[in-house]
């Protein structure tokens, strides 16, 4: 209890301070996976073929395997309908996979259902509550299902998510952001070992986003909570996650560590050069450096790998091409995402 109150105190001032750069998650060699997802497949079928598991259907997950270490913040990235939510639901047992297994610290998702779920705190898709009841009633109800939590802890959690003023009004009157906050509150109130958040920052205001980010870091640093979360907001992934999995059409496309992402982004950049003879300039650059080029109007785009930016400028000037402007655009996570999920 006390340690939890300390967390509250500690979380409050830092929520407003700037996010510190994360240095802890550099090296991700997982010796012992905490959450292991093995060969999970799921095809959504209709009618009787649901039982026979044959025939056509929508493939939501196709042989997905993942290992997540203890205390890791793991992100899942993918376009709409890629299978992010289905994967998260398969982990929480809401969706029954056709094949494969999910284990959390040796506990099987199906066989040791209760012990498994006791270690998980989850907020899946849009948070849904009993709309005619108050936020407090809803939290209490879920706390009782959890096996009972001290009232003070629920109050602390309400404080952390900043809902103290509205907790005694009906959930039906809440805005999207407030529901999201209540959803996060119910997910973390029992101090889960594995926190699963599906689109946790949807509908949150900038303050809320910073708070959630800080809260996730805090939970991991202080309690060693493992966090699995999906988001569409790429910037969020980049700042928060230790590793990111890219999912497309139900398949796991790539898993990249934070370092890999940063390197991948730093390595490649796009040069936008406005000059008088873009076509000749493009031919020159392509010949000398072997980079891909593209001309649009008076602008020449060059995909640069590694350094050489100064060299390019020098070459152009030496060949008598007058350069009007020279812009360096580093490759964004967005572009990386597009490439990987193509």
């Amino acid at each position: 209890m006390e340690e939890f109150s300390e967390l509250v105190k500690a979380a409050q001032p830092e929520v407003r301070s700037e996010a510190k750069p994360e240095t802890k998650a550099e090296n991700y060699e997982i010796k012992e996976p905490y959450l292991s997802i093995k060969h999970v497949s799921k095809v959504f079928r209709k009618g009787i073929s649901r039982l026979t598991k044959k025939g056509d259907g929508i493939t939501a997950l196709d042989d997905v395997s993942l290992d997540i270490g203890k205390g890791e913040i793991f992100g899942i990235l993918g376009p709409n309908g890629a299978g992010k939510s289905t994967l998260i639901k398969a982990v929480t047992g809401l969706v029954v996979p056709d094949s494969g297994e999910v284990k959390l610290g040796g506990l099987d998702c199906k066989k040791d259902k209760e012990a498994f779920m006791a270690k998980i705190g989850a907020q899946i898709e849009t948070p849904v509550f009993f709309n005619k009841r108050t936020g407090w009633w809803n939290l209490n109800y879920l706390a009782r299902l959890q096996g009972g939590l001290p009232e003070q802890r629920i109050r602390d959690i309400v404080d952390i998510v900043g809902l103290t003023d509205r907790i005694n009004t009906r959930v039906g009157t809440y805005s999207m952001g407030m529901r999201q906050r209540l959803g996060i509150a119910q997910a973390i109130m029992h101090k889960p070992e594995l926190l699963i958040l599906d689109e946790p920052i949807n509908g949150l205001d900038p303050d809320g986003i910073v708070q959630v980010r800080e809260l996730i870091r805090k939970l991991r640093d202080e309690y060693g909570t493992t966090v699995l979360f999906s988001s569409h907001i790429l910037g969020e992934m980049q700042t928060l996650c230790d590793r990111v999995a890219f999912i497309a059409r139900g398949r796991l496309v790539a898993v990249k560590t934070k370092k890999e992402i940063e390197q991948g982004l730093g390595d490649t950049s796009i040069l936008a050069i406005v000059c008088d003879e873009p076509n000749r300039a493009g031919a020159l650059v392509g010949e000398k450096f072997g980079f891909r080029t593209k001309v649009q109007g008076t602008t020449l785009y060059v995909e640069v790998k590694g350094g050489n930016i100064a060299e390019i400028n020098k070459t152009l000037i030496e060949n008598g091409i007058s350069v009007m402007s020279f812009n360096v655009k580093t490759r964004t996570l967005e572009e990386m995402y597009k490439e990987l999920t193509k």
Partner: protein
Amino acid sequence: MKGFFTVFSLECKKVFSSKGFWIFAIVILALCLIITATFSWLGEALEGMDDSVLGDTTVELSPGEMAEAYRLQLNEYLALVESGQVEVKPGDTTETELRNMIAICEYCQEHGVDINKLITLGSLGSLNMSSSDYVTTMMQVAFSFVIIMAIVLAARCFAGELEDGTMRMQLTRPVKRGVLLSAKYTATFVSSMTLGIVFTVLFMVIGAIAFNGTTYDVVLVDAYQNVAVINPYAAICLLVLFNAVALAVVIQFTVFVGTFFTKTGSLAIPLVLYLFADTVAALLYNTGIPFVGLFTNLNWAAGLTPTGAPIRGMSIYSMIAVTTVWFAAMTAINHIAFEKRDLK
């Protein structure tokens, strides 16, 4: 089991603290009081009337003689019905009912029981208003409303929660699906049953006040015209039991439908089946299918007669067996289907 009681008590609290439950309770109470008022008015209106069956009632008759007189008249009428001279229209006393009444007359004659001091279950015996007649009739009325309420509650707490996603929130807690399903089922059953019992006690109080506590014994006739007479309090307990069985089956069916269909389906299908159960039973009655009588739980009471066959060709034991097998099979399918279901 520990998990079950936690979820069960939570579900009960949820039902008892919901507005819907209390609105239902008040509406049912209001309807029953209106019916009570109509009855008491009817009782007063009928008080001065002559007993039309016997014609001249100035002659003092012993119970045996009175039963004999009834029997002769009924036999005469039955002969007319059998020969086709009198056409039985819907709503009239049917041939079976006539035979049952004759059987009752014979019983009274044999045992020297006053036929005017006996009541049948579920139909107000028009001329002999008594508190036992009132209570048993009103119980049937109240329980039919309670069953409708139970369907709504069951559809809301199961299919409704599956549909709006609150079930998902509950299932991300350390609760087994089977436990959640049975706890929700039991909570709906217990809350509806509580309401039914409260109403029964209320009617007993009203009955005692309005009818000076006059109680008559209850007469039961089975499919082979065997007669048994039971104490009115025993009859009330029996009715509570039969209604409990009906509630259990109906709620189970609603939850069952809810596992496969939407909330609307889970609400509409059992409701339509229940409201038209009598019509369905009447339609099927002529087909000679024996267990049609399972629909009308009053038939069950006839199982207490010596031979104990509420329906021709089916004893009370086989009726209990059929119901148990039905209930167990549906519950098993329900649990398996729910375990395998993907949640939205």
